[in-house]
C-alpha cells in the first residue's frame, strides 16, 4: 500500500484551513451547503481509508497464514489495529453527536397548542430556538419578546422560520457527524454553524426588507444573554461577525473558492480510490499466493 491510504486522513486539515475564508467568500447558502458536502466527502474518505488499513489484518487470519506463510505485509500490524480502533471510535462519536443534537429538540418539542408556529415559554432568559419536526415549531421565551420591539420580534421569527424552511438542522447534523468522525473537520463544522446563522439572517433581512433591523435584533439578543451563558469565544465572535455582515454585506466571490473546496474534497476521494486499487492488488497477491 502506498501513501495514498493516509491522504484522506490528513487532507481534511486543508479543508479546515479553507473553511473560514470559504465561508465568507461563498456567501451563506453556497458556503453552508458546499462546506457540508466537502466535509461529508472528507469524512467518508477518512472512514474508508481507515477500513482499508484495518483490513490489512486479513493476512493474519490463522487460515491465511497457515495456507501461505510469508505473505506481503503492507502496513505494520499496529497501524492496522490503530485504524480498526479509530473506526470504532469515529462511529461511536458520530452516533453520540447526532444523539446530542436531537435529544434537546425532542425534549423541547411539546404537544401543546402553538400560536401559529410559536410555543411560548414563561422564562426570563431571552431565548429563541427553532425546533425542527412536523410541523416545525419555534420556542420563544417571554424574556425574548419583552426584550425586543414588535418589528425586531418579527425579525427573530423570520430568522427561526428560515432555519425550519431550509432544514438547516440536517446540514448541521451532517457537518457535526463529519467533525465527530474526523476531528480535523471541526473548523468546517463551526463554519457551517456560522453560515447557517448568516443564511437565516439574510432571509429575515429580505423578508422584512430591513438589514439594520435584523442586525439590531441579533445584537440586542446577544447582549442580553451575555451575563447568563458562559462566554464562548467562538460563538461570541460569530455574533459580531453576523452583525458586521448585516451592516456591510460582503460581496461573495464564488468561482475560485468553490473550486478550491471541490478540489480538496475530490483529492480526498481520489486518494481513497487509489488506496482501494492498491488494496485490490494486495488482495490479489494474497489470494493467488
Amino acid at each position, binding site marked *: 500500500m502506498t501513501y495514498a491510504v493516509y491522504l484522506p486522513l490528513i487532507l481534511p486539515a486543508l479543508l479546515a484551513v479553507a473553511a473560514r475564508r470559504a465561508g465568507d467568500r461563498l456567501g451563506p447558502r453556497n458556503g453552508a451547503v458546499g462546506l457540508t458536502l466537502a466535509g461529508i466527502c472528507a469524512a467518508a474518505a477518512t472512514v474508508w481509508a481507515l477500513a482499508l488499513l484495518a483490513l490489512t489484518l486479513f493476512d493474519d487470519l490463522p487460515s491465511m497464514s497457515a495456507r501461505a506463510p510469508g505473505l506481503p505485509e503492507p502496513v505494520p500490524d499496529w497501524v492496522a489495529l490503530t485504524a480498526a480502533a479509530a473506526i470504532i471510535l469515529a462511529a461511536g462519536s458520530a452516533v453520540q453527536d447526532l444523539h446530542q443534537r436531537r435529544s434537546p429538540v425532542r425534549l423541547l418539542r411539546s404537544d401543546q397548542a402553538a400560536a*401559529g408556529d410559536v410555543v411560548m415559554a414563561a422564562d426570563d432568559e431571552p431565548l429563541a430556538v427553532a425546533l425542527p419536526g412536523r410541523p416545525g415549531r419555534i420556542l420563544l421565551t417571554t424574556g425574548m419578546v419583552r426584550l425586543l420591539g414588535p418589528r425586531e420580534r418579527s425579525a427573530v421569527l423570520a430568522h427561526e422560520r428560515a432555519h425550519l424552511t431550509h432544514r438547516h438542522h440536517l446540514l448541521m447534523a451532517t457537518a457535526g457527524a463529519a467533525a465527530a468522525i474526523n476531528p480535523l473537520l471541526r473548523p468546517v463544522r463551526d463554519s457551517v454553524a456560522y453560515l447557517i446563522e448568516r443564511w437565516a439572517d439574510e432571509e429575515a433581512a429580505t423578508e422584512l426588507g430591513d438589514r439594520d433591523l435584523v442586525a439590531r435584533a441579533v445584537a440586542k439578543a446577544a447582549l442580553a444573554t451575555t451575563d447568563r451563558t458562559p462566554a464562548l469565544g467562538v460563538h461570541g465572535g460569530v*455574533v459580531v461577525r453576523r452583525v458586521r455582515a448585516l451592516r456591510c454585506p460582503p460581496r461573495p466571490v464564488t468561482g475560485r473558492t468553490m473550486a478550491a473546496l471541490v478540489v480538496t474534497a475530490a483529492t480526498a476521494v481520489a486518494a481513497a480510490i487509489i488506496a482501494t486499487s492498491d488494496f485490490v492488488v494486495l488482495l490479489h497477491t494474497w489470494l493467488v499466493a
Partner: protein
Amino acid sequence: MEAKRRPRGALESEVMAALWAAGKPLSPADVQATLGGGLAYNTVQTILIRLMDKELVRRAAQGRGHIYWPVLDAATTAADRMRAALDARPDRQAVLQQFAAGLGAEDAEVLRALLDERTS
C-alpha cells in the same frame, strides 16, 4: 421597503408575542396599534378568538369590547420543559442553534459600539 404580506400562522404568533410582551391585558385595538403594518381590526379580533379557542388566551369584558391576556399555564409547562432540557447541558451552544447567545466581554464592547454607530 415595504415588508411582504404576512401569512396567517405568522400573524397568530406575532399577536401572541405582542400579548406576552405587553405584560398587561390588551384590547384588539391595542394589539393592532402595537403590530402596525396595516392590519385590519377584524383580522386582529379573529386571531385573538382563534388563540382563545386554543386556550392560549383569555379575555374579559371591558367597556363595549374585550381585553385579552395570555394564559400562563401552557407557557409555564413549556418553560419547565425548557429548563429541564437546557440546564442539564453546560455545552448547549454546541448542540442547540440558539438565536444569539454567549458573548465574551470584548465582543459585547464591539457590539455596543456597532449599535451606537447605528442609532447615532
